[in-house]
């Protein structure tokens, strides 16, 4: 368990971060178009990134709920 966590930290985390940034860039314009919020591009990007962070946290919490022994 220890090892998987630390491996995640060293190898998978940078990849995951990069991927999420790229995804934020791609979906930001869609979100801007779909919602009626009047924000500039940078702000939309930041909001999308925040939304994705929230989603990631939610997934993390589900992992804790169903496999609490790992933490």
């Amino acid at each position, binding site marked *: 368990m220890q090892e998987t966590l630390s491996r995640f930290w060293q190898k998978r985390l940078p990849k995951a971060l990069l991927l999420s940034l790229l995804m934020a860039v791609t979906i930001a314009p869609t979100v801007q178009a779909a919602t009626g919020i009047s924000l500039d591009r940078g702000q939309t990007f930041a909001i999308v990134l925040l939304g994705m962070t929230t989603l990631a946290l*939610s997934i993390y*919490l589900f992992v*804790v*709920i169903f496999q*609490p022994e790992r933490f």
Partner: protein
Amino acid sequence: MNSQLTNLQSKPPRSPDRKGRQVSTKGLYQRAVKQAFLKLDPRVQLRNPVMFLVWIGTIVTALVTINPNLFGNATDKNPMVFNGLITLILLFTLLFANFAEAVAEGRGKAQADSLRATKSDSIARKLSPDGSIQDVSSTELRKGDLIKVIAGDVIPADGEVTQGLASVDESAITGESAPVLKQPGTDIASSVTGGTRILSDELVIRVTADPGKGFIDRMIALVEGAERSKTPNEIALTVLLAVLTQVFLIVIATMLPIAQYAKAPVSIAVLIALLVALIPTTIGGLLSAIGIAGMDRVAQFNVIATSGRAVEACGDISTLILDKTGTITLGNRLAEEFIPVNGHSLKELAQVALNASIFDETPEGKSIVILAEKLGASLTVDRSTATGIEFSARTRMSGTDLPNNIEVRKGAVDAVKGFVRSRSGQIPDELDAKYESVSRLGGTPLAVCQDNDIYGVIYLKDIIKPGIKERFGQLRRMGIRTVMLTGDNRITASVIAAEAGVDDFVAEATPEDKIEVIRAEQAKGKLVAMTGDGTNDAPALAQANVGVAMNSGTQAAKEAANMVDLDSDPTKLIDIVTIGKQLLITRGALTTFSIANDIAKYFAIIPAIFAGAGIGQLNVMGLASMQSAVLSALIYNALIIPALIPLALKGVKFRPLTANQLLSRNILVYGLGGIIAPFIAIKIIDIAVTAVGLA
């Protein structure tokens, strides 16, 4: 009677604050402060779901402090200052939680250090199979090696004495300064612990543990918390805390568009502040500290628990199985009176009793000798020409074979009757009457015979420990049943049981009976705790839910148990149960308090941030402004953690009450208190925040 048990010296119960070992707390807090910062490492925070959210929240609020327009144009007044304050408070929330854990861990570490001081690499004298001695480093010793230690040495490893007789100073682990006699053969006295010092003579020891796996090594690992894993109840509680965190994460995340729609927009920093206020940070921050402190409290009692699980199980114990001798009665039964039968005179009986006790080294045996001598008997045989017959749980007799083929025996009346019958002797009619009369006094009758002739009965007087009856009364109130195990006959056992106030007893018990009693109780769904020391106690210790081995006991017993009492005081079992309960109560009280706090935090923050939607009238606390309301709730949320650290470490005061009384009392303090206290505290902080001009 069981001579193994009589070896246990009774000691007065320790008070919890007395420390067996000197533990230095110097520098504890400075180290904890440093640790609090080091624990900000996300890899550490990830293990605590509640605090990990706070950690992420702190980063996001730090970002909006740098650029308040990051997620949309800021509408708050002085957004940079306000967001900066929120960031700072969140950071302190994290640090306070880390500090709590670090202090709890620090105490364990201090204890481990003092243990470690006893451990140093030393040169051991290893005995080769050919008998020659070679000097090796203690780290090279392996299980099965034979070593020789002489006066002044530190014993390099755990082991069993195979030769010699010596006194050993075990104060390093027990805190008891009186030296202990070690010799081969006897179950208890033959085991030695690495790190203790041999004071006199010399011993040959067979090593029983590889380096790094000895008793002290395990103890260090345990008190340091290196092997600490979450207990089942902690895991379940972690799940619930994660669920509450998840619920509030959803509530807050969805509030952004909902508030936007209702034309009462809320800034990201305020939403994060609300999220942190609502998730159970108080218990989330203190949970591990409570667990570590619980282990530590057990350690302060000079008991080493092999796991937090064992401490937790203590709270659930519903049956205590206690040996009579040493636990309920003072260890030493003393000969009070000789009662002759069969027409023998008192003096004759005294002489036979004396002969039967020549080799009996137990306090009982010695007291018989003293009483016999007082009655005019004297040693007539030469010790070297006679053979001692040792007591065993099977024969329940001991005695002496005299040189002229005369066998004298003393022991349980049944056993002696059997002995006499097997030598076709007559059982005098009056024996049973005498036996009963002694039993009715709560004493232990021992029959004495020479060959096939029964001479009489020795009345061994049992003394019930002062105050023990009250303690059993307390246990009964807590719903814990006590079962007394004794080798005595039924009548004696019932008299002592009634006098001591135990709920049940098993008379004429052999060590094997223990495991039967435990299994029977467990079959009824009960959790059982017991103490034991001998090798034949090991299966029962393993079977019991909480098995406390005496440090004076054998290695096998210590391996099988999940706790080891360094003072070898069986009465402590009762205290250990109390500590287990106290641990659970503390955890429950802080959980309740933490969750009850949410009501006040909601009423502080929601009306304030939605004042734009016209619900300002719900601001029942009359907080000055939206910003001061948010800051006050957050400051309260952060400060409550250090405020509760002493409670988390010391534990909620435990009273021996029934479950319902405990619930009413604790609900009143921590439930109702948890609802009301934050209303008052947040209002006061709000006044202060406004006065200082923060918002």
